[in-house]
Structure formats: structure tokens, C-alpha cells
């Protein structure tokens, strides 16, 4: 064995290939799950709102009824902020959108590709808490991606469900469209 290895050791090509492999593997592991906060058009803090006692579903109100949890309309924001801290800087920006009747172009944080079917409704209605997938948003100022929502991640959770339904949840067309 030692002879072979010693022979190999003199092969810079093999060394280089090994190095590349290591970099790719390490890079792959490290790059997963990194959270990068995105610049949003408005300084909105989830932390502040939740600390003030608000429920996620107050704003993301269609989560129990629809595929999409929903981002509140400008009207909804204004509903409170006409009276609450209307003078702060970010409220002025909000006011601007309202006056121009423009939607707020929020940056997406979590995104599924379009061949994936995901509906909030069954997940939320079956008692799954928002934090399970979105992390502890109450401690985030800006919403951040807390997990890499890839197929294995979905399946890991689906596999842990009740034995009677878990195989159903492994059916490809449940999530693929």
C-alpha cells in the first residue's frame, strides 16, 4: 500500500483534484442554511410587531384559507399606522405608497420553484406552527431565510408524520405540479 500511495503522492494532478473535491464538499455544506438578509423597500421589523403582541395570521391572514400566506395590502398597514407612530421615517415611506396608490415591492425571502406545489392552508390547519419552517421570526428584525427549503427537507418532515398518511405524503404529485 505504502508504495502505491507514495507513487500517488507525486502526482500533483491527483492532489489538485482532491483539493477541488474537498473545496466543493465543504463549500456545499457551508453554503446550505446561510441566511442573508435582503434589503427591503421599507424598514419593517417583525420583531417589533410580534413584541407588540401581534399574531402572524393577523397580517398573513390567508395562510389558513389559501395556498399563499399573503402579504398585507397597503390598506391594511395604513389601517393601524394612521394612528400608530405616523411620524416615523418609515411610516412616511408607507404614507408615500398609500398616497401614490402603489403597491410595496417587497423582496422575496422564501421562494419555491414553479414546479412545486405548496399550500399553506393544510400545513397551518393541521397545527403546524409558523416557526417550524420560517424560524424564529419574532427575533428577527428583517425576515430571513432560516432553512434551505429543499426537497429532502420537505420529505424529512413528511416522513415523520403518522404512519397512516406518511406514504401518501411521499407521493410525488403531492408536491410536484
Amino acid at each position: 500500500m505504502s508504495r502505491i500511495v507514495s507513487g500517488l503522492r507525486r502526482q500533483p494532478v491527483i492532489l489538485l483534484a482532491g483539493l477541488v473535491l474537498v473545496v466543493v464538499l465543504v463549500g456545499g455544506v457551508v453554503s446550505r442554511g446561510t441566511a442573508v438578509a435582503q434589503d427591503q423597500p421599507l424598514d419593517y421589523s417583525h420583531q417589533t410587531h410580534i413584541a407588540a403582541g401581534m399574531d402572524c395570521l393577523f397580517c398573513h391572514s390567508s395562510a389558513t384559507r389559501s395556498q399563499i400566506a399573503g402579504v398585507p395590502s397597503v390598506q391594511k398597514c395604513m389601517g393601524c399606522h394612521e394612528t400608530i407612530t405616523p411620524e416615523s421615517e418609515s411610516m412616511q415611506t408607507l404614507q408615500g405608497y398609500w398616497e401614490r396608490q402603489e403597491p410595496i415591492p417587497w423582496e422575496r425571502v422564501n421562494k419555491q420553484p414553479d414546479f412545486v406545489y405548496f399550500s399553506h392552508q393544510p400545513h397551518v390547519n393541521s397545527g403546524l406552527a409558523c416557526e417550524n419552517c420560517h424560524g424564529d421570526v419574532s427575533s428577527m428584525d428583517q425576515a430571513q431565510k432560516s432553512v434551505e427549503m429543499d426537497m429532502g427537507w420537505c420529505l424529512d418532515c413528511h416522513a415523520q408524520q403518522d404512519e397512516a398518511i406518511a406514504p401518501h405524503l411521499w407521493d410525488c404529485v403531492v408536491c410536484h405540479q
Partner: protein
Amino acid sequence: MTTRLSDNPTTRLSDHRWGMAIDLDKCTGCQACVVSCHAENNVPIVGEEEAAYGRTAHWLRIERYWEGEYPNVKAKFMPVMCQQCTEAPCEAVCPVYATYHSDEGLNGQIYNRCIGTRFCGSACPYKQRMYNWFDPVFPEPLEQQLNPDVTVRSRGIMEKCTFCVQRIRRVKEDAKAEGREVTDGEIQPACAQSCPTNAIVFGDLNDPESRVSQMARSSRAFRLLENLGTEPGVVYLKGGETRV
């Protein structure tokens, strides 16, 4: 032969076996189902040249057969879509499981898993699998017609009729949210929904009372290329004859 399914632990759990019955006596070849399918499933159009070469992407097509010669000539219509075979020849040959058998009897096609070997297309005796030869084109603003429940398939991917699986999923989810069972006739694929003569009926073959089961038991019932043993989920009722 369906007993072989019981070897597989994932197939025993399901209550449903979705199926379709098509009464050829009622089909008038009106093409409503064809356009309906295009609209529901974001099926691309390919243009005249490609169509002339035989590359139309219709997931559902009306086949027209001639019989006899003038003046005793007859024409018959037969809508043919993916037959959703129980023992589907296409499934076993896919190297990456892009097509597989769902536990409700559907021959599922997972577009984004497809690498485009076209083996399934060669293996399908009905030639009902459509390949995306090019990226689909939807000149603005035609892309706004696209159904968000169905992904748009890029080039190099096989696609086919899914029995409008997105509709099945939606109805099931709605029924679950309302805490009830799915009722017969509640799920309608786009073709069955639009069919003006009600020639196409969709339902659960496991439910002996469903309309589709009743039709499947008809003496007129047959399946396409039955002798190949593919056990299609589509049942045809052959055209009748009136004697005067």
C-alpha cells in the same frame, strides 16, 4: 394482474383509483376537450411547420377513423389521452423515476425530474407522451393566461395528460378542509368538464357506485389495446348501432 400491486406497500393505502370512461357513442369530435386541455395545462402551441412534422403537443387528441368507401363511408371519433395504465410500460423504463405510479392509480409525470431520455415515449404503446422539442413561447401578454397550478415545461422534457392532477389535489384539499369525503363527480378534469355531450366521465373506479364504475361495467366497455395488458385507467364505450 392488479394483485401484483399489493406487493408494494405504498399502493395499499389508497381509497381511490381515478379513472375515466369515454362514451364513443356520444363523442362528436367537437374539439372542446382539446382546447380545454390546452387552457388548463399550459400546453404549448408549436406552429404550422412543427405541427406538419407531427410535433403538436396535444395531451388529448381526437382520433378519426374511416370505415368503408364512398358512398357507404363512415367516420368514427375517439378521444385518446394518456391511458393512465396500471401496468404502465412507460414507468419502468424511466431511469430517474420522472414517471411513476401514484398511489391513486395515476401515472404521474414529474416534469422537473425528467432528463429527457424519451424512453417512456418509445415504450408507450399509445404514443401519448409529448416531448418539448423547444422552449414554449407565449408572446406577451399571452403568458398571463397560464394556469399557476401547472408548471410550464421547458425544452427537453416529456409531458402528458395527468388527469388534471392539480384539480384532483385541489378538490381533495377542499374536501379535507371541510371535513368530508370527495363526492362522485366533484372532480372533473378540464376535458370532462367541457365535453358538451357528456361523453367523458371521470371518477373513482374503486367506488362501485360512481358513474365511471357503472360505465366501466357496461357491455360496451373496452380498453384501448387491451391485449397488451397495460390495464388502462381509461375505459371506452364503443359506439352503438340503431336498427330501423
